[in-house]
C-alpha cells in the first residue's frame, strides 16, 4: 500500500468511507462516548443509534450489535438503479458517494443483517461494471477530443481513484505534446 504523493490506495478510499454514519442496534448499555469526531450514544439495548462505520464494524466484529442495512441496500431500489444507469448516457447520482466501499465492508462483516445479501452484492457489482465501462469510454472520448478539462459530478471517489494514475499521467503527456508543438520550430540553446 503506497502512501505516496499523487497516489491513493483503495484502502485509503475505504478509510474515508468509514466516516459515513450507519445505524446499529446495540446489545449492550453504555453512556455517551465523547469522540473527537463527535459524540456517539448513549447505547441502549435494541434501540437504534447512529455511529460512524468504522465503529460499527468494530462493534459488529465483537458481536455487540446488529446493523441496519442502509435504505438503498434493497433489491428493488438497486434493480431500478441498475436500469437507470444502463439506460443513461451519462453518470447518474449514486445513493452514496461510497456505495462500493460500504457494500464491501458490510457484506464482509454483517451479511446476516442484510436481506438478500448475495443479490445485493451482485447488483452493486453490476452497477459498478456498467459505470466503469462508461468511464473508460468517456476517458477515451476525452483523450481524443480537444478539451482541456472535464466535469465529473456523479463519479464516486473509488471510481475516480481506479483510473486516476493512468488518466492523469496520460493527460500530462498530452499537455506536454501540445506545448512543444505550439512553439513550432525553435532555436536549440547552448549547453
Amino acid at each position, binding site marked *: 500500500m503506497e502512501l505516496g504523493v499523487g497516489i491513493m490506495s483503495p484502502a485509503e478510499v475505504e478509510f474515508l468511507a468509514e466516516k459515513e454514519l450507519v445505524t446499529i442496534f446495540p446489545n449492550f448499555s453504555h453512556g455517551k462516548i465523547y*469522540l473527537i469526531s463527535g459524540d456517539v450514544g448513549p447505547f441502549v439495548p435494541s434501540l437504534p443509534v447512529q455511529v460512524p462505520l468504522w465503529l460499527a464494524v468494530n462493534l459488529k466484529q465483537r458481536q455487540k450489535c446488529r446493523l441496519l442495512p442502509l435504505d438503498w441496500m434493497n433489491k428493488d431500489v438497486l434493480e431500478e438503479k441498475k436500469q437507470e444507469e444502463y439506460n443513461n448516457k451519462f453518470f447518474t447520482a449514486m445513493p452514496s458517494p461510497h456505495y462500493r466501499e460500504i457494500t464491501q465492508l458490510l457484506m464482509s462483516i454483517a451479511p446476516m443483517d442484510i436481506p438478500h445479501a448475495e443479490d445485493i452484492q451482485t447488483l452493486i457489482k453490476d452497477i459498478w461494471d456498467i459505470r466503469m465501462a462508461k468511464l473508460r469510454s468517456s476517458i477515451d472520448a476525452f483523450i481524443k477530443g480537444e478539451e482541456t478539462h472535464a466535469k465529473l459530478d456523479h463519479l464516486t471517489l473509488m471510481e475516480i481513484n481506479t483510473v486516476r494514475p493512468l488518466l492523469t499521467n496520460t493527460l500530462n503527456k498530452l499537455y506536454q505534446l501540445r506545448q512543444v508543438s505550439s512553439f513550432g520550430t525553435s532555436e536549440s540553446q547552448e549547453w
Partner: protein
Amino acid sequence: MAGDYETHAQEEILHSDEDETELTTPIEVLQKLEEAWLNEKFAPELLPYKGELVDCMLDQLQHMDQNLRRVKPGDFRIIIHKMELDRIQFVLNSYLRIRLEKIERFGAYLLNLEAQEEAENIELMSPEEKLFAQQYVGNIEGYLHDTILQHMPPNMEHFQLASVGSKPNLDSYVFFKVLKDTPSLVVEEGASETRESDIIDLEAGSQHIIRYRPVYRLLQNGTVKLI
C-alpha cells in the same frame, strides 16, 4: 456506571490568528486536517505548512491520551477512543510523510523558494522540515562529490542539485471538488489562432479534472479542494 473520569474531548479550542481569536471545535480541526492531507497528497508542489492544525491536533491527541491513562484499564471506552486516535494519527503521519517525500524530490528548489516565502510571511516548511531539507540536499551533494565529482577534471567538479533545476510540475492534472461558486476560470490561454482560451464556471459541489496551474490559487484560498 462510568468511571470517575469522563473521556471528554476538549470542547473548544481557542487559537489566535494575529489579532483575531477564532473558536474552532475539534470536529472542525479534524475536518480541516483531513482536507489539508488530501490537498497535500494530490498537489504537485509543496503547500504551506499547516502548523496550527498539526499542533492543535497533537494537543487533542495528547489530551485524550492523558484522559485514557486515568481510566480504569479494560474500560469499554478505551478501545473505541484508541481506534479513533489511530485514525487521526494515520492522517497526521501521512500528511507529514507526503511532505517529506516532496522535500526529497525537490528540496534544493524549496530551499531557494523559502527565502522568497519568508519575505511574504508564509511558512512553507516547518523548522524541522527546513533542517531536513538542508541536510538531505547536503548529503546527496556530499555523496556525489565523494564518489564521483572529486575524480573529475577541475572544471567539472562543481555540481549543485539546485542547478539541475528540479521543480514540481505545476501542469500536472488533478481532480478537485468545488467548495464555493466561482465564475469564469481561465483554464488554458489561447495558444494560437486555432485555440481560444477555455473559460469555465465552477459550481459549488461539482467535481472536475484540470491542470493544477489554473486552480492552485483557488486551492490556497479554500475555494476548491483536491480529491
